[in-house]
């Protein structure tokens, strides 16, 4: 099997795991959101890689082009990016509220305070 034929998918897995690691191993809530963003982008990269056809071109119809890449993943991811920024901002708003209530955004300190 050719190494290059699956390179993109492996990169996706690595990125996804790096994001996952940040989410579970870092205690800072904003850092966790950044990790979640990396995870999310890795999914985007996966979809777009699946949609690519080698030798194809962007799916804007034109009479002198024969082969196009798959437009369907593009549609899904295009909307997902904007939804992603909207949901990230909800997350950030929650973080701000947590900061207002606990005076900290470190997971440990918040847990300690809520135990008392």
């Amino acid at each position, binding site marked *: 099997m050719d190494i290059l034929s*699956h390179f993109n998918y492996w990169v996706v897995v690595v990125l996804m795991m790096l994001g996952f690691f940040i989410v579970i191993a870092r205690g*800072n809530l904003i850092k966790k959101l950044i990790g979640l963003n990396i995870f999310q982008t890795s999914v985007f990269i996966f979809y777009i890689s699946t949609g690519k056809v080698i030798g*194809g071109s962007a799916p804007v119809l034109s009479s002198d082009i024969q082969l196009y890449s798959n437009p369907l993943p593009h549609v899904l991811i295009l909307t997902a990016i904007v939804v992603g920024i909207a949901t990230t901002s909800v997350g950030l708003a929650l973080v701000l509220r947590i900061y207002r209530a606990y005076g900290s955004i470190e997971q440990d300190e918040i847990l300690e305070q809520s135990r008392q």
Partner: protein
Amino acid sequence: MELAVNIVLLSLLVTTAAALVLVRGLLASIMLTSIYGLLSASFFVIMDAVDVAFTEAAVGAGVSPLLLLLSVAVIGRHEARNAGARPLFAVLLVGITGALLIVGTLDMPAFGRADAPAHLHVAPRYLLLSGEETGIPNVVTSVLASYRAYDTLGEVIVIFTAGVAVILILASGTHRGSARPHSAPVDTKDPHTILQVVSKTMIPFMLLFAFYVQFHGDYGPGGGFQAGVIFASGIILYGLLYGLPAICRVIRPPVVELCSALGVLVYGVTGILSMLQGRPFLDYSVLADDPIRAQQIGIMVIELGVGITVASVLIVIYYAFANQFETNGN
């Protein structure tokens, strides 16, 4: 050449993500995140996903790092050195999951093959017939706004709901409403004259370009989502330089809040119109006698609704965050 650039960009992406794992300090992380966004947009260009790259460019270059920066400005950029860490457990969990996923990819069809199952089902029909059925060269636009308009309606409602959620979360406890600024204008010791002059020349171009993207989306990359983000970016730049009270005088918060609902309403009413004529929801054929013309009108109206909602929700979110920033910062 294309594949080589693909490999280099992906390696840079992995490097950036690894640096994000290692680096401490939130401002540094935000800057690396913005580099990560730039890299992934370049990657999308290489993968022929022009519209996706466009969206990522508009979101990743302006709004996304900015919201993170504003939150960090309220909270403080310090990141505790070893909080919540059970690194061994985390490494083990991540390693096992990653290994399983890699084993899973081995069954995937090779990258870029034209006969992969993903390319055999609906996509050929879109590519073959969408030109005749809608008369719109950009397949992504016609799929987004016509063939899969139900999905898009869902996404627009999600964005609208996110805007409402941000208002509710951040407004409670202080005062009613999202962004009625009650702080005096920020008195900066030195006004940013150069920045203000340059931005004043560029903001009109941003807004104009947003309209170009909105209405040119049928023929090239673009559409309501991208246009909304670009429009909001222009407004946000103005707000950054002149302060929240100034921008709230230009565009009053209740107006934006109303507009974010208006976009969804435009979208929904288009669907209801076809139901009133006895056709299925969001069937555009009732909008004109000629079916192609009807499709084009429907797609234009819907993209307009999307653009209005996206732009105003992002502005609403900016107002809410900037309000926190300016009241807590002073």
